[in-house]
């Protein structure tokens, strides 16, 4: 198993007492598998993604990535895991505005210490970004920026890709195009993909779907 989530809970402190967001979620994901995590706003799907990415810590339960329980890791170990094994693609792209497209694409691979210029070139070709390599993110359209973010993640060849509404900020046509490219490239690199989405049409493109409702797998 690439990813195993077991009985994970998470509670946020709110103004009127504690607010349980995840109430014991379990799921698993194999290598080469793609999984859509769907659910309404507030169902806890983004929180679960953040927990798997090590961006936040669980209330209870265990999350194993490639056999390592990340809930027992230190902050810097989790950071190391994000650097090398897990790639996160955000809805807001989160590019580094002061670096060029090329530098952004290479960034995570360089952090992970496995940058390969040929592979990066193939990736930018595949994403249609080659004409824009010397531009800065602010000069790109939203779809192009998300392609850069996808490229940044995949050039680093992570074992697990986490995507949080990657097409949520894009218009329908662009969204479909970006999704196609992303799925093709994920398949090509052999990574597992966990995608949070509220769109049924997007979810249907994944091998499996898990629906979250009020903090539980429905």
């Amino acid at each position: 198993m690439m990813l195993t989530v077991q009985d994970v809970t998470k509670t946020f402190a709110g103004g009127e007492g504690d607010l349980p967001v995840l109430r014991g979620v379990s799921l698993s994901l194999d290598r080469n598998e793609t999984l859509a995590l769907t659910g309404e706003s507030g169902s806890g799907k983004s929180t679960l993604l953040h927990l798997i990415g090590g961006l936040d810590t669980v209330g209870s339960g265990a999350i194993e990535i490639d056999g390592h329980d990340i809930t027992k890791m230190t902050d810097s170990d989790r950071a190391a895991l994000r650097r090398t094994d897990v790639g996160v693609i955000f809805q807001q792209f989160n590019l580094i505005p002061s670096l060029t497209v090329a530098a952004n694409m290479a960034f995570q691979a360089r952090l992970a210490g496995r940058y390969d210029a040929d592979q990066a070139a193939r990736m930018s070709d595949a994403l249609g970004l080659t004409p824009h390599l010397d531009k800065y993110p602010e000069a790109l359209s939203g779809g192009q920026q998300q392609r850069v973010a996808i490229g940044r993640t995949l050039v680093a060849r992570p074992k697990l890709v986490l995507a949080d509404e990657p097409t949520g900020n894009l218009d329908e046509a662009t969204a479909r195009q970006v999704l196609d490219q992303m799925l093709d490239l994920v398949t090509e690199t052999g990574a597992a993909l966990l995608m949070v989405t509220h769109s049924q049409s997007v979810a249907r493109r994944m091998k499996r779907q898990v629906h979250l409702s009020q903090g539980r797998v429905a």
Partner: protein
Amino acid sequence: MTWTTLTALLSHWRRNGLQFFALISGLALATALWSGVQAINAEARASYDAAAATLGEGQFGQLLPRTGNRIDQATYIALRRSGWQVSPVLEGRIDTTQGRVRIVGLDPLTAPGNVAPVGMQEGTSLDDFLTRGVLFAATDVADQLENAVSQRIVTDPSAAPGVALTDIGVAQDLLDAQGTLSRLILAPEQPMGRPDLAGITPDLVLQPAQDAGADRLTDSFHLNLTAFGLLSFAVGIFIVHGTISLAFEQRRGMVRTLRALGVPLGRLIGLMIAELVLFALIAGAIGVALGYVIAAVLLPNVAATLQGLYGASVAGTLQLRAEWWLSGMAIAVVGTGLAAAGALWKIAHMPLLSSARPRAWAVASGATARRLGAVAGLLFLVGVGIEIRGKGLALGFVLLACMLIGAALLLPLVLRGAVTLADRQARSVVWQWFWADTRQQVPGMSLALMALLLATAANVGVTTMVSSFRVTFVDFLDQRLAPELFISAEDAAQSPDLEAFLIDNAREVLPLLSVETEIAGVPSDLFGARVGPTYRNNWVFVAETPEVWDRVARGEAAVVSEQLARRAGLWTGDAVAVAPGLSLPIAAVVADYGNPLGQALIDEAVFSDLYPDRVPTRFGVRTDDAAGLREKLVERVGLSDAAIIDQARIKAFSLEVFERTFTVTGALNVLTLAVAAFAILMSLLTLASLRVPQLAPAWALGMTRRRLGRLELLRAVVLAFVTTVLAIPLGLLLAWVLLSYVNVEAFGWKLPMYVFPGHYALLTVFALLAAALAALWPALRLARTPPSDLLKVFANDR
């Protein structure tokens, strides 16, 4: 990973040149302010010391010939060989084509302390001075001497006016006075078991050292300049803080992204610290050099040379000492560290998932402003406590710190209050919007305005302190050195003839009658005064009753010094027993800076009744032709040159040197305001991009961009105005603490404080101009914002 992360961090500055410029120049300016003030302080000190030194010849006792104006050199040798530590002086005049020049010959091997020419340290070797002959003189005298003497002439701006200094042997040659001397200076330290003067020579009289009191005044001034050096440090730290906070705010998003991509927090913070230290060092170095150049440009009579930067000693140049380099670099690094500590702490505790949206450069929302106000209140309470209860110099500086920090922290609350008040008066919708919008801007501009507050307060304080000091110093000189000449009779027998001659030849003659006594248990000097226009016009009192001098002249009252009054617990109206059996009411109290002895002054006639044996041997003389009278006295009465002291010249020279200090004040004003204006400019530029979404609705509702730009400018000026109005009382308070608290703690007496409303008004205008200039560019940019940018606000929210 380290390198990759660092390139990302550094790429921010490459892409945002303006921010980088703001960071480096903010740091550099703060450092420049500090090192410039250090340089200016040092120069001011040197000027004061030079002024004090010219007053200082009286600090040594002297042996004068009882009759005539020459001493046989053999008498000097006899005195030395019996143990008397005396140093010979020969004075006289030589004719040049452009008039006569006074030659003063000294023996540098035996002269005590400050008597030798200052320039001698660099200008020449002792070998030259002793065996070949060198004359030191100010430029005009040097020109005059050029063709009159064969010896080398060294121009020394610190030489006393109208005088050429040279070796005693050279002076004897020039004046054709082989084997004779004019007077002997008595070293302050004498060996034990020295025989009586009368046993060696009956022909000399001892004139004891006189204390001009100028040293005590200048000590006080030095302390105050140091205090303002610290103040400039505080202003500098504020600006550094603002700049650094800004730099961190702008990179919140990047920090979040980097962490999400797997850069560990510790590594990230470490790299940011390294980056900041690097910047601090670069900016610090620029700042120190800049401060040095600024100081050199602003100061008169000082040349900045490249060698000066390395601390090489070149005559007449400003030196940049190692301490300045070190303290300048330290302020840059320490200031950066202080400022960055908070920002780094925030980054370290920033949740990874928090909004990446940069906030405004905010320090004070409504709640924060109130919290800061509460802290300020607390600081003021501590300050008041110290003022009432505290003792000691250290506490004095704590008091200053409480006031300054308190006032700065109070500023956001005051600004909000002022804007709210204006809002209530607003009639039209536009103005209501303007004031509401201004209130929103207060947090963003608080730090810059705090810097303006401190800068303006410092300027008010410096101006008040320096000008008060100047008035006091001039009064003091007027009072003590009012007579143009001071003349010593050779002995009591000569006194009546000399006095008669003086009365015939001078405007006013003031015999100096005094006796050492004890008044109200305080060791004091009792003076008998011939009340006349000099006393009436020149004496300034700490406290007085009506008709002071009339009552003194009628023998009905006395004037006492502040020291005597305070120590004896007396004040105006109280009676003081000036002598056994004579008690007089105190008509006035006069300041006498730091004199350990008390002083009381009564009318000459009353004094003579008390001490009929006392005959005045010294006279102050008021005359319009000091030089003419001096010549008459030498030629007709046969007085020695040394018996005539030219006070007017000493006074004029002291004042001239003193004037340099006022350039210093001007320099400080320019420097601090420039830095504050820079802080405002940078905060406005930063706010400008955030302003677009806030201004777009107003534009959409029909206000032109031009009008919006004008309102932006107005807003900056209004906020600066409120800040300046607050700064004036703060600056006055600052000066008051320094003059009335710190000075008392350090020296035991108050320096009177004078208020100069004209200066403050001018300063306010300058501060507003600085703020307007700073706001001009951002406002212009806003007025020229393309409509498409404004429209974008409505197209999507980012």
